Protein backbone atom coordinates (compact mmCIF):
# COMPACT_ATOMS: atom_id res chain seq x y z
CA UNK A 1 0.00 0.00 0.00
CA UNK A 2 1.41 3.36 -0.91
CA UNK A 3 0.50 6.30 1.21
CA UNK A 4 0.58 9.67 -0.38
CA UNK A 5 1.88 12.33 1.92
CA UNK A 6 -0.91 14.76 2.72
CA UNK A 7 -0.39 18.46 2.45
CA UNK A 8 1.10 19.90 5.61
CA UNK A 9 -1.42 21.84 7.64
CA UNK A 10 -1.22 25.53 6.91
CA UNK A 11 0.51 26.98 9.90
CA UNK A 12 2.42 30.20 9.42
CA UNK A 13 6.03 29.69 10.32
CA UNK A 14 8.16 32.78 10.78
CA UNK A 15 5.83 33.94 8.05
CA UNK A 16 7.22 35.53 4.92
CA UNK A 17 4.06 36.97 3.47
CA UNK A 18 4.09 40.65 2.66
CA UNK A 19 1.49 42.45 4.67
CA UNK A 20 -0.02 45.89 4.69
CA UNK A 21 1.60 46.54 8.05
CA UNK A 22 4.86 46.87 6.16
CA UNK A 23 3.84 50.20 4.84
CA UNK A 24 2.97 51.45 8.31
CA UNK A 25 6.42 52.68 9.31
CA UNK A 26 9.35 53.90 7.26
CA UNK A 27 12.00 51.23 7.10
CA UNK A 28 14.70 53.10 9.03
CA UNK A 29 12.30 53.83 11.90
CA UNK A 30 11.38 50.16 12.04
CA UNK A 31 15.04 49.11 12.03
CA UNK A 32 15.91 51.55 14.79
CA UNK A 33 13.02 50.43 16.98
CA UNK A 34 13.69 46.76 16.33
CA UNK A 35 17.37 47.13 17.16
CA UNK A 36 16.71 48.95 20.42
CA UNK A 37 14.06 46.45 21.50
CA UNK A 38 16.15 43.42 20.57
CA UNK A 39 19.17 44.74 22.45
CA UNK A 40 17.02 45.34 25.55
CA UNK A 41 15.67 41.78 25.37
CA UNK A 42 19.06 40.16 24.85
CA UNK A 43 21.10 42.28 27.25
CA UNK A 44 20.17 40.36 30.43
CA UNK A 45 21.56 37.16 28.91
CA UNK A 46 24.73 38.90 27.68
CA UNK A 47 25.16 40.34 31.17
CA UNK A 48 24.75 36.89 32.68
CA UNK A 49 27.39 35.51 30.35
CA UNK A 50 29.70 38.46 30.93
CA UNK A 51 29.51 38.14 34.71
CA UNK A 52 30.15 34.41 34.50
CA UNK A 53 33.53 35.08 32.85
CA UNK A 54 34.84 37.48 35.50
CA UNK A 55 36.80 36.98 38.68
CA UNK A 56 34.72 37.76 41.73
CA UNK A 57 36.31 41.12 42.55
CA UNK A 58 35.57 42.40 39.05
CA UNK A 59 31.83 41.85 39.43
CA UNK A 60 31.83 44.88 41.73
CA UNK A 61 33.00 47.41 39.15
CA UNK A 62 31.25 50.70 38.68
CA UNK A 63 30.52 51.60 35.92
CA UNK A 64 29.98 48.01 34.79
CA UNK A 65 32.45 46.39 32.42
CA UNK A 66 31.61 43.71 29.88
CA UNK A 67 34.85 41.79 29.76
CA UNK A 68 37.32 40.68 32.41
CA UNK A 69 40.40 42.87 32.76
CA UNK A 70 42.77 41.95 31.20
CA UNK A 71 40.78 40.08 28.57
CA UNK A 72 43.50 37.44 28.32
CA UNK A 73 42.43 35.89 31.65
CA UNK A 74 39.01 35.03 30.20
CA UNK A 75 39.59 31.37 29.25
CA UNK A 76 41.31 30.55 32.53
CA UNK A 77 38.72 32.45 34.56
CA UNK A 78 35.85 30.80 32.67
CA UNK A 79 37.35 27.41 33.42
CA UNK A 80 37.65 28.25 37.11
CA UNK A 81 34.07 29.53 37.37
CA UNK A 82 32.39 26.82 35.32
CA UNK A 83 34.48 23.84 36.34
CA UNK A 84 36.73 24.74 39.27
CA UNK A 85 39.67 22.67 40.40
CA UNK A 86 40.02 19.87 42.92
CA UNK A 87 43.17 18.34 44.34
CA UNK A 88 44.02 14.63 44.25
CA UNK A 89 41.95 13.89 47.36
CA UNK A 90 38.95 15.51 45.71
CA UNK A 91 39.01 18.61 47.91
CA UNK A 92 38.05 21.88 46.31
CA UNK A 93 40.96 24.14 45.44
CA UNK A 94 39.08 26.71 43.41
CA UNK A 95 35.32 26.63 43.76
CA UNK A 96 33.59 26.18 40.41
CA UNK A 97 30.11 25.04 39.45
CA UNK A 98 30.80 21.60 37.99
CA UNK A 99 33.04 20.37 40.83
CA UNK A 100 31.30 22.14 43.73
CA UNK A 101 31.09 19.54 46.52
CA UNK A 102 27.97 20.96 48.19
CA UNK A 103 25.84 21.70 45.16
CA UNK A 104 26.37 18.64 43.02
CA UNK A 105 25.68 19.91 39.52
CA UNK A 106 26.49 16.67 37.62
CA UNK A 107 24.13 14.73 39.89
CA UNK A 108 21.28 17.20 39.42
CA UNK A 109 21.87 17.11 35.69
CA UNK A 110 21.66 13.33 35.78
CA UNK A 111 18.40 13.41 37.78
CA UNK A 112 16.90 15.95 35.40
CA UNK A 113 17.82 13.87 32.38
CA UNK A 114 16.35 10.71 33.96
CA UNK A 115 13.07 12.48 34.71
CA UNK A 116 13.08 14.10 31.27
CA UNK A 117 13.70 10.84 29.39
CA UNK A 118 11.02 8.88 31.26
CA UNK A 119 8.51 11.66 31.23
CA UNK A 120 8.96 12.75 27.60
CA UNK A 121 8.66 9.14 26.40
CA UNK A 122 5.49 8.64 28.39
CA UNK A 123 3.97 11.92 27.30
CA UNK A 124 4.58 11.31 23.59
CA UNK A 125 3.24 7.74 23.63
CA UNK A 126 0.17 8.39 25.77
CA UNK A 127 -0.83 11.63 24.04
CA UNK A 128 -0.43 10.05 20.61
CA UNK A 129 -2.75 7.19 21.57
CA UNK A 130 -5.38 9.33 23.32
CA UNK A 131 -5.49 11.91 20.53
CA UNK A 132 -6.28 9.09 18.08
CA UNK A 133 -9.32 8.19 20.16
CA UNK A 134 -10.55 11.77 19.84
CA UNK A 135 -9.65 12.34 16.19
CA UNK A 136 -10.44 9.07 14.47
CA UNK A 137 -12.93 7.01 16.47
CA UNK A 138 -16.55 8.16 16.41
CA UNK A 139 -18.01 7.30 19.75
CA UNK A 140 -21.02 8.59 21.65
CA UNK A 141 -19.97 11.18 24.24
CA UNK A 142 -16.77 12.10 22.44
CA UNK A 143 -17.56 15.80 22.19
CA UNK A 144 -18.34 16.30 25.84
CA UNK A 145 -15.34 14.24 26.93
CA UNK A 146 -13.09 16.35 24.76
CA UNK A 147 -14.52 19.46 26.40
CA UNK A 148 -13.52 17.98 29.75
CA UNK A 149 -10.01 17.35 28.39
CA UNK A 150 -9.73 20.98 27.35
CA UNK A 151 -11.07 22.28 30.64
CA UNK A 152 -8.42 20.36 32.60
CA UNK A 153 -5.88 22.73 31.09
CA UNK A 154 -7.33 25.50 33.22
CA UNK A 155 -6.73 23.85 36.57
CA UNK A 156 -3.63 25.36 38.14
CA UNK A 157 -1.10 22.93 39.60
CA UNK A 158 -1.03 24.69 43.01
CA UNK A 159 -4.71 23.81 43.41
CA UNK A 160 -4.01 20.06 43.44
CA UNK A 161 -0.45 19.94 44.76
CA UNK A 162 -1.38 19.43 48.42
CA UNK A 163 -3.72 16.43 47.87
CA UNK A 164 -1.34 15.05 45.23
CA UNK A 165 1.40 15.13 47.83
CA UNK A 166 -0.82 13.14 50.20
CA UNK A 167 -1.64 10.59 47.49
CA UNK A 168 2.02 10.13 46.56
CA UNK A 169 2.90 9.91 50.24
CA UNK A 170 0.45 7.06 50.77
CA UNK A 171 2.04 5.31 47.76
CA UNK A 172 5.48 5.82 49.36
CA UNK A 173 6.61 7.81 46.34
CA UNK A 174 7.74 10.90 48.26
CA UNK A 175 11.53 11.02 48.26
CA UNK A 176 11.73 9.29 44.86
CA UNK A 177 11.61 10.66 41.32
CA UNK A 178 8.34 8.80 40.58
CA UNK A 179 5.90 11.70 41.18
CA UNK A 180 7.76 13.72 38.56
CA UNK A 181 7.43 11.31 35.66
CA UNK A 182 4.67 8.74 36.25
CA UNK A 183 1.80 11.22 35.69
CA UNK A 184 3.33 12.05 32.29
CA UNK A 185 2.38 8.55 31.10
CA UNK A 186 -1.30 9.54 31.30
CA UNK A 187 -1.20 12.32 28.66
CA UNK A 188 -2.34 15.88 29.27
CA UNK A 189 -4.94 18.21 27.83
CA UNK A 190 -2.59 20.48 25.93
CA UNK A 191 -0.76 17.72 24.08
CA UNK A 192 -3.94 15.77 23.31
CA UNK A 193 -5.38 18.94 21.84
CA UNK A 194 -2.26 19.66 19.80
CA UNK A 195 -2.04 16.14 18.35
CA UNK A 196 -5.77 15.87 17.69
CA UNK A 197 -5.56 19.08 15.63
CA UNK A 198 -2.74 17.59 13.64
CA UNK A 199 -4.41 14.20 13.11
CA UNK A 200 -7.54 15.92 11.81
CA UNK A 201 -5.48 17.55 9.07
CA UNK A 202 -4.57 14.08 7.75
CA UNK A 203 -7.13 13.10 5.08
CA UNK A 204 -9.76 10.58 6.19
CA UNK A 205 -9.53 8.91 2.77
CA UNK A 206 -6.28 7.30 3.89
CA UNK A 207 -8.07 5.57 6.76
CA UNK A 208 -10.85 4.45 4.48
CA UNK A 209 -8.49 3.02 1.90
CA UNK A 210 -6.58 1.22 4.63
CA UNK A 211 -9.80 -0.17 6.11
CA UNK A 212 -10.75 -1.60 2.73
CA UNK A 213 -7.29 -3.16 2.61
CA UNK A 214 -8.13 -4.85 5.90
CA UNK A 215 -6.35 -2.53 8.35
CA UNK A 216 -7.61 -2.51 11.95
CA UNK A 217 -7.92 0.66 14.07
CA UNK A 218 -4.51 -0.01 15.52
CA UNK A 219 -3.15 -0.62 12.03
CA UNK A 220 -4.40 2.78 10.91
CA UNK A 221 -2.84 4.41 13.96
CA UNK A 222 0.47 2.60 13.60
CA UNK A 223 0.94 2.59 9.84
CA UNK A 224 -0.72 5.82 8.75
CA UNK A 225 -1.24 8.34 11.50
CA UNK A 226 1.98 7.93 13.46
CA UNK A 227 4.40 8.05 10.51
CA UNK A 228 2.69 11.16 9.18
CA UNK A 229 2.64 12.87 12.58
CA UNK A 230 6.35 12.90 13.32
CA UNK A 231 6.60 16.72 13.22
CA UNK A 232 3.74 17.09 15.71
CA UNK A 233 5.15 14.38 17.97
CA UNK A 234 8.45 16.26 17.90
CA UNK A 235 6.64 19.38 19.11
CA UNK A 236 5.11 17.44 22.01
CA UNK A 237 8.48 15.96 22.95
CA UNK A 238 10.22 19.31 22.74
CA UNK A 239 7.64 21.23 24.78
CA UNK A 240 7.48 18.56 27.42
CA UNK A 241 11.24 18.44 27.71
CA UNK A 242 11.26 22.20 28.23
CA UNK A 243 8.57 21.83 30.86
CA UNK A 244 10.58 19.23 32.79
CA UNK A 245 13.78 21.25 32.53
CA UNK A 246 11.98 24.35 33.79
CA UNK A 247 9.68 22.84 36.42
CA UNK A 248 10.40 24.16 39.89
CA UNK A 249 7.26 23.74 42.00
CA UNK A 250 6.81 20.01 41.27
CA UNK A 251 10.32 19.04 42.42
CA UNK A 252 10.08 21.46 45.35
CA UNK A 253 6.96 19.72 46.62
CA UNK A 254 7.79 16.09 45.86
CA UNK A 255 11.56 15.77 46.32
CA UNK A 256 12.84 15.60 49.86
CA UNK A 257 16.46 14.41 49.55
CA UNK A 258 19.04 16.74 48.15
CA UNK A 259 20.56 13.89 46.14
CA UNK A 260 17.28 13.59 44.18
CA UNK A 261 17.15 17.27 43.22
CA UNK A 262 16.69 18.38 39.64
CA UNK A 263 18.66 21.24 38.12
CA UNK A 264 16.01 23.89 38.71
CA UNK A 265 15.91 22.98 42.38
CA UNK A 266 19.68 22.62 42.64
CA UNK A 267 20.22 26.02 41.06
CA UNK A 268 18.02 27.51 43.72
CA UNK A 269 20.35 26.14 46.41
CA UNK A 270 23.00 28.64 45.36
CA UNK A 271 20.51 31.38 46.06
CA UNK A 272 19.11 30.00 49.32
CA UNK A 273 22.61 29.91 50.86
CA UNK A 274 22.16 33.50 51.94
CA UNK A 275 24.84 35.67 50.41
CA UNK A 276 27.36 32.83 50.37
CA UNK A 277 27.62 32.46 46.62
CA UNK A 278 29.45 35.12 44.61
CA UNK A 279 27.66 36.53 41.57
CA UNK A 280 30.13 35.21 39.04
CA UNK A 281 29.46 31.62 40.15
CA UNK A 282 25.70 32.21 40.28
CA UNK A 283 25.77 33.46 36.71
CA UNK A 284 28.00 30.58 35.60
CA UNK A 285 25.53 28.11 37.10
CA UNK A 286 22.60 29.95 35.49
CA UNK A 287 24.37 29.89 32.14
CA UNK A 288 24.86 26.15 32.47
CA UNK A 289 21.13 25.68 33.03
CA UNK A 290 20.11 28.07 30.25
CA UNK A 291 22.62 26.99 27.59
CA UNK A 292 21.22 23.50 26.81
CA UNK A 293 17.74 24.92 26.32
CA UNK A 294 18.97 27.65 23.99
CA UNK A 295 21.03 25.12 22.06
CA UNK A 296 18.01 22.88 21.69
CA UNK A 297 15.97 25.83 20.48
CA UNK A 298 18.46 26.83 17.82
CA UNK A 299 18.66 23.26 16.58
CA UNK A 300 14.89 22.84 16.38
CA UNK A 301 13.74 26.37 15.72
CA UNK A 302 11.28 25.51 12.95
CA UNK A 303 9.52 22.78 14.92
CA UNK A 304 9.38 25.02 17.91
CA UNK A 305 7.85 28.12 16.43
CA UNK A 306 5.32 26.10 14.47
CA UNK A 307 4.19 24.47 17.69
CA UNK A 308 3.64 27.74 19.48
CA UNK A 309 1.80 29.25 16.56
CA UNK A 310 -0.58 26.27 16.46
CA UNK A 311 -1.34 26.59 20.13
CA UNK A 312 -2.73 30.07 19.66
CA UNK A 313 -4.34 29.96 16.26
CA UNK A 314 -7.01 27.44 16.90
CA UNK A 315 -7.50 28.36 20.55
Amino acid sequence: MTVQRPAQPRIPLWPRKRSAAETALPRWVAYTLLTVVSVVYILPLIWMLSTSFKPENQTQTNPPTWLPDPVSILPQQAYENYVGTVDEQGRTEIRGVWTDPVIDFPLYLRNTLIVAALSVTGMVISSAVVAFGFARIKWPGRGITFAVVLSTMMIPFPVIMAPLFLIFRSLDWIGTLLPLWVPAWFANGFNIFLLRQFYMSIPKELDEAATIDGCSQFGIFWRIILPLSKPALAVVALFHFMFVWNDFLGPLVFLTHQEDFTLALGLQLYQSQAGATPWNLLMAASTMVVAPVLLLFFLTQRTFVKGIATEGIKG
Partner: protein
Amino acid sequence: MSAGETGSPSRRLFSGLAWISPWLVGFLVFLAFPLLLSFRYSLTDYSILESPLPIGLENYRQLLDDPTFWKVMWNTAVYAIFTVGLGTVLAILLASLLNRDIPGIGIFRTAIFVPTLVPLVAAAMVWMWLFNGELGLINAGLRPLFTVVNAALGTDFRGPAWLEEAAWNMPALVIMSLWMVGRAVVIYLAALQGVPQDMYEASAIDGMGRARRFWHVTLPMISPVILFNVIIAIIDAWQVFAVPYVMTRGIGGPEKAMYFYSHYLYDNAFLFGPRMGYACALAWVQLAIVLCLTGLTFWVSRRYVFYRS
Protein backbone atom coordinates in the same frame (compact mmCIF):
# COMPACT_ATOMS: atom_id res chain seq x y z
CA MET B 1 -16.14 4.34 6.22
CA SER B 2 -12.95 3.70 8.14
CA ALA B 3 -12.36 1.25 10.93
CA GLY B 4 -13.12 3.88 13.57
CA GLU B 5 -16.54 4.74 12.19
CA THR B 6 -18.16 1.36 11.70
CA GLY B 7 -19.88 -1.00 14.12
CA SER B 8 -22.64 -0.47 16.62
CA PRO B 9 -22.58 2.59 18.92
CA SER B 10 -21.72 0.47 21.94
CA ARG B 11 -18.85 -1.11 20.07
CA ARG B 12 -17.54 2.29 19.03
CA LEU B 13 -17.97 3.58 22.56
CA PHE B 14 -15.93 0.68 23.81
CA SER B 15 -13.05 1.25 21.39
CA GLY B 16 -13.18 5.03 21.93
CA LEU B 17 -12.84 4.55 25.67
CA ALA B 18 -10.06 2.05 25.13
CA TRP B 19 -8.06 4.58 23.12
CA ILE B 20 -8.51 7.38 25.60
CA SER B 21 -8.06 5.15 28.66
CA PRO B 22 -4.58 6.50 29.52
CA TRP B 23 -6.00 9.99 29.82
CA LEU B 24 -9.11 8.75 31.60
CA VAL B 25 -7.12 6.92 34.27
CA GLY B 26 -4.75 9.84 34.71
CA PHE B 27 -7.65 12.27 34.91
CA LEU B 28 -9.36 10.25 37.63
CA VAL B 29 -6.24 9.47 39.68
CA PHE B 30 -4.16 12.62 39.32
CA LEU B 31 -6.84 15.28 38.91
CA ALA B 32 -10.43 14.41 39.80
CA PHE B 33 -9.54 12.42 42.90
CA PRO B 34 -7.11 15.03 44.28
CA LEU B 35 -9.70 17.73 43.65
CA LEU B 36 -12.36 15.85 45.59
CA LEU B 37 -9.90 14.94 48.30
CA SER B 38 -8.89 18.57 48.51
CA PHE B 39 -12.52 19.60 48.94
CA ARG B 40 -13.02 17.05 51.69
CA TYR B 41 -9.91 18.17 53.55
CA SER B 42 -10.88 21.81 53.13
CA LEU B 43 -13.74 21.04 55.55
CA THR B 44 -11.35 19.65 58.17
CA ASP B 45 -8.52 20.56 60.47
CA TYR B 46 -5.69 18.38 59.18
CA SER B 47 -2.03 18.46 60.16
CA ILE B 48 -1.05 15.21 58.34
CA LEU B 49 0.24 13.79 61.63
CA GLU B 50 -3.25 13.30 63.04
CA SER B 51 -6.35 12.22 61.16
CA PRO B 52 -8.51 15.02 59.74
CA LEU B 53 -10.98 16.58 62.15
CA PRO B 54 -14.21 17.79 60.49
CA ILE B 55 -14.85 21.46 61.20
CA GLY B 56 -17.35 22.36 58.49
CA LEU B 57 -16.79 25.68 56.78
CA GLU B 58 -14.49 26.99 59.51
CA ASN B 59 -11.45 27.17 57.18
CA TYR B 60 -13.34 29.26 54.67
CA ARG B 61 -14.63 31.52 57.43
CA GLN B 62 -11.10 31.96 58.79
CA LEU B 63 -9.88 33.01 55.36
CA LEU B 64 -12.09 36.08 55.55
CA ASP B 65 -10.41 37.20 58.79
CA ASP B 66 -6.89 36.28 57.71
CA PRO B 67 -4.87 39.43 56.95
CA THR B 68 -2.17 37.41 55.17
CA PHE B 69 -4.82 35.93 52.87
CA TRP B 70 -5.96 39.42 51.90
CA LYS B 71 -2.35 40.51 51.49
CA VAL B 72 -1.58 37.72 49.02
CA MET B 73 -4.91 38.26 47.25
CA TRP B 74 -4.06 41.92 46.77
CA ASN B 75 -0.48 41.24 45.66
CA THR B 76 -1.56 38.56 43.21
CA ALA B 77 -4.39 40.66 41.79
CA VAL B 78 -2.12 43.69 41.30
CA TYR B 79 0.53 41.51 39.70
CA ALA B 80 -2.02 39.84 37.40
CA ILE B 81 -3.61 43.12 36.33
CA PHE B 82 -0.32 44.77 35.44
CA THR B 83 1.39 41.79 33.81
CA VAL B 84 -1.67 40.80 31.78
CA GLY B 85 -2.60 44.37 30.84
CA LEU B 86 0.85 45.69 29.99
CA GLY B 87 1.98 42.32 28.64
CA THR B 88 -0.90 42.11 26.17
CA VAL B 89 -0.43 45.65 24.88
CA LEU B 90 3.33 45.20 24.58
CA ALA B 91 3.00 41.82 22.87
CA ILE B 92 0.59 43.17 20.24
CA LEU B 93 2.82 46.18 19.60
CA LEU B 94 5.92 44.02 19.27
CA ALA B 95 4.12 41.58 17.00
CA SER B 96 3.00 44.45 14.74
CA LEU B 97 6.55 45.77 14.67
CA LEU B 98 7.89 42.33 13.79
CA ASN B 99 5.22 41.74 11.16
CA ARG B 100 7.21 42.81 8.12
CA ASP B 101 9.36 41.04 5.64
CA ILE B 102 12.62 42.96 5.81
CA PRO B 103 16.16 41.53 5.80
CA GLY B 104 17.27 40.41 9.26
CA ILE B 105 13.76 40.22 10.71
CA GLY B 106 14.43 36.66 11.87
CA ILE B 107 17.18 37.91 14.17
CA PHE B 108 14.87 40.45 15.79
CA ARG B 109 12.12 37.85 16.24
CA THR B 110 14.55 35.42 17.79
CA ALA B 111 15.93 38.08 20.15
CA ILE B 112 12.49 38.78 21.57
CA PHE B 113 11.54 35.12 21.80
CA VAL B 114 14.71 33.75 23.41
CA PRO B 115 14.06 35.10 26.95
CA THR B 116 10.92 32.93 27.21
CA LEU B 117 13.14 29.86 26.97
CA VAL B 118 15.14 30.73 30.06
CA PRO B 119 14.11 28.47 32.97
CA LEU B 120 12.38 30.56 35.61
CA VAL B 121 14.85 29.84 38.39
CA ALA B 122 17.75 30.95 36.18
CA ALA B 123 15.75 33.99 35.05
CA ALA B 124 15.11 34.89 38.68
CA MET B 125 18.85 34.76 39.42
CA VAL B 126 19.76 36.87 36.40
CA TRP B 127 17.17 39.51 37.28
CA MET B 128 18.23 39.61 40.92
CA TRP B 129 21.63 40.51 39.63
CA LEU B 130 20.22 43.08 37.19
CA PHE B 131 18.04 44.62 39.91
CA ASN B 132 20.86 44.72 42.47
CA GLY B 133 20.74 48.20 44.03
CA GLU B 134 24.51 48.82 44.16
CA LEU B 135 25.99 46.80 41.34
CA GLY B 136 23.03 45.98 39.12
CA LEU B 137 23.10 46.79 35.44
CA ILE B 138 19.71 48.54 35.57
CA ASN B 139 20.75 51.10 38.15
CA ALA B 140 24.10 51.50 36.42
CA GLY B 141 22.18 52.34 33.27
CA LEU B 142 19.97 54.81 35.13
CA ARG B 143 22.89 56.52 36.87
CA PRO B 144 23.91 58.91 34.06
CA LEU B 145 20.26 59.91 33.70
CA PHE B 146 19.94 60.66 37.41
CA THR B 147 23.24 62.54 37.38
CA VAL B 148 21.91 64.92 34.75
CA VAL B 149 18.56 65.32 36.47
CA ASN B 150 20.13 65.85 39.89
CA ALA B 151 22.60 68.40 38.54
CA ALA B 152 19.78 70.32 36.89
CA LEU B 153 17.29 70.23 39.75
CA GLY B 154 19.62 69.94 42.74
CA THR B 155 17.81 66.79 43.80
CA ASP B 156 19.26 63.52 45.02
CA PHE B 157 17.49 60.87 42.97
CA ARG B 158 19.10 57.50 42.59
CA GLY B 159 18.15 54.07 41.32
CA PRO B 160 15.99 52.21 43.85
CA ALA B 161 16.99 49.01 45.62
CA TRP B 162 14.43 47.16 43.53
CA LEU B 163 14.23 44.00 45.55
CA GLU B 164 15.00 45.37 49.03
CA GLU B 165 12.47 48.22 49.10
CA ALA B 166 8.93 46.84 49.31
CA ALA B 167 7.48 49.63 47.16
CA TRP B 168 9.72 48.68 44.24
CA ASN B 169 9.14 44.91 44.37
CA MET B 170 5.99 44.90 42.27
CA PRO B 171 7.35 47.15 39.50
CA ALA B 172 10.45 44.95 39.40
CA LEU B 173 8.43 41.75 38.95
CA VAL B 174 6.19 43.33 36.32
CA ILE B 175 9.21 44.58 34.37
CA MET B 176 10.68 41.12 34.49
CA SER B 177 7.42 39.56 33.29
CA LEU B 178 7.45 41.91 30.27
CA TRP B 179 10.82 40.46 29.36
CA MET B 180 9.17 37.07 28.97
CA VAL B 181 6.35 38.16 26.70
CA GLY B 182 7.81 36.46 23.61
CA ARG B 183 5.49 33.47 23.50
CA ALA B 184 2.49 35.72 23.16
CA VAL B 185 4.35 37.75 20.54
CA VAL B 186 4.83 34.65 18.37
CA ILE B 187 1.14 33.79 18.65
CA TYR B 188 0.03 37.35 17.80
CA LEU B 189 2.46 37.43 14.92
CA ALA B 190 0.91 34.28 13.45
CA ALA B 191 -2.54 35.82 13.98
CA LEU B 192 -1.54 39.06 12.23
CA GLN B 193 -0.31 37.04 9.28
CA GLY B 194 -3.70 35.37 9.13
CA VAL B 195 -5.56 38.63 8.52
CA PRO B 196 -6.64 38.50 4.85
CA GLN B 197 -4.75 40.94 2.65
CA ASP B 198 -7.89 42.07 0.83
CA MET B 199 -9.29 43.49 4.06
CA TYR B 200 -6.37 45.90 4.21
CA GLU B 201 -6.79 46.74 0.58
CA ALA B 202 -10.49 47.39 1.03
CA SER B 203 -9.81 49.62 4.03
CA ALA B 204 -7.19 51.53 2.03
CA ILE B 205 -9.71 52.12 -0.74
CA ASP B 206 -12.15 53.37 1.88
CA GLY B 207 -9.51 55.92 2.84
CA MET B 208 -8.72 54.61 6.33
CA GLY B 209 -5.55 55.88 7.96
CA ARG B 210 -3.03 53.59 9.63
CA ALA B 211 -4.24 54.09 13.17
CA ARG B 212 -7.90 53.59 12.26
CA ARG B 213 -7.06 50.57 10.18
CA PHE B 214 -5.24 49.00 13.11
CA TRP B 215 -8.15 49.76 15.42
CA HIS B 216 -11.03 48.85 13.10
CA VAL B 217 -9.57 46.04 10.99
CA THR B 218 -6.54 44.44 12.59
CA LEU B 219 -7.66 44.30 16.21
CA PRO B 220 -11.13 42.87 15.52
CA MET B 221 -9.64 40.29 13.20
CA ILE B 222 -7.17 39.02 15.81
CA SER B 223 -9.54 39.42 18.77
CA PRO B 224 -10.21 35.65 19.22
CA VAL B 225 -6.47 35.12 19.61
CA ILE B 226 -6.28 38.02 22.05
CA LEU B 227 -9.04 36.41 24.10
CA PHE B 228 -7.22 33.07 24.18
CA ASN B 229 -3.96 34.71 25.19
CA VAL B 230 -5.51 36.86 27.87
CA ILE B 231 -7.12 33.81 29.48
CA ILE B 232 -3.83 31.93 29.45
CA ALA B 233 -2.03 34.98 30.84
CA ILE B 234 -4.53 35.42 33.68
CA ILE B 235 -4.28 31.77 34.70
CA ASP B 236 -0.48 31.96 34.55
CA ALA B 237 -0.25 35.22 36.46
CA TRP B 238 -2.53 33.94 39.19
CA GLN B 239 -0.20 30.99 39.74
CA VAL B 240 3.01 33.01 39.92
CA PHE B 241 5.40 31.21 42.25
CA ALA B 242 8.95 30.34 41.18
CA VAL B 243 10.39 33.78 40.51
CA PRO B 244 9.30 35.59 43.72
CA TYR B 245 9.98 32.43 45.73
CA VAL B 246 13.56 32.18 44.51
CA MET B 247 14.19 35.93 44.69
CA THR B 248 13.04 36.12 48.30
CA ARG B 249 14.54 32.78 49.39
CA GLY B 250 11.05 31.50 50.13
CA ILE B 251 10.25 34.35 52.51
CA GLY B 252 8.06 36.58 50.39
CA GLY B 253 10.24 39.67 50.52
CA PRO B 254 10.33 42.78 52.68
CA GLU B 255 6.90 43.46 54.23
CA LYS B 256 5.65 40.41 52.28
CA ALA B 257 5.46 42.58 49.17
CA MET B 258 6.47 39.58 47.03
CA TYR B 259 4.25 37.07 48.82
CA PHE B 260 1.80 35.57 46.34
CA TYR B 261 -1.20 33.29 46.47
CA SER B 262 0.48 30.02 45.45
CA HIS B 263 3.34 30.67 47.82
CA TYR B 264 0.98 31.15 50.76
CA LEU B 265 -0.83 27.96 49.76
CA TYR B 266 2.52 26.13 49.61
CA ASP B 267 3.54 27.43 53.04
CA ASN B 268 0.25 26.31 54.60
CA ALA B 269 0.39 22.87 53.01
CA PHE B 270 4.02 22.07 53.75
CA LEU B 271 5.41 24.53 56.27
CA PHE B 272 2.98 25.99 58.80
CA GLY B 273 2.13 23.04 60.96
CA PRO B 274 1.30 21.90 58.24
CA ARG B 275 -2.22 23.22 57.92
CA MET B 276 -3.40 20.92 55.16
CA GLY B 277 -7.10 21.68 55.63
CA TYR B 278 -6.52 25.41 55.39
CA ALA B 279 -4.28 24.92 52.34
CA CYS B 280 -7.05 22.92 50.63
CA ALA B 281 -9.54 25.70 51.33
CA LEU B 282 -7.06 28.12 49.75
CA ALA B 283 -6.78 25.78 46.77
CA TRP B 284 -10.54 25.72 46.20
CA VAL B 285 -10.75 29.48 46.47
CA GLN B 286 -7.92 29.73 43.93
CA LEU B 287 -9.77 27.39 41.58
CA ALA B 288 -12.94 29.42 41.95
CA ILE B 289 -11.05 32.64 41.23
CA VAL B 290 -9.41 31.26 38.11
CA LEU B 291 -12.73 29.92 36.81
CA CYS B 292 -14.51 33.20 37.56
CA LEU B 293 -11.82 35.25 35.83
CA THR B 294 -12.00 32.98 32.78
CA GLY B 295 -15.78 33.22 32.75
CA LEU B 296 -15.59 36.98 33.13
CA THR B 297 -13.16 37.23 30.21
CA PHE B 298 -15.56 35.23 28.03
CA TRP B 299 -18.48 37.35 29.13
CA VAL B 300 -16.71 40.63 28.41
CA SER B 301 -15.47 39.25 25.12
CA ARG B 302 -18.98 38.49 23.85
CA ARG B 303 -19.18 42.17 23.03
CA TYR B 304 -15.70 42.64 21.68
CA VAL B 305 -14.52 39.43 20.10
CA PHE B 306 -15.24 39.04 16.44
CA TYR B 307 -15.49 35.53 15.00
CA ARG B 308 -15.35 35.02 11.28
CA SER B 309 -18.29 32.79 10.24
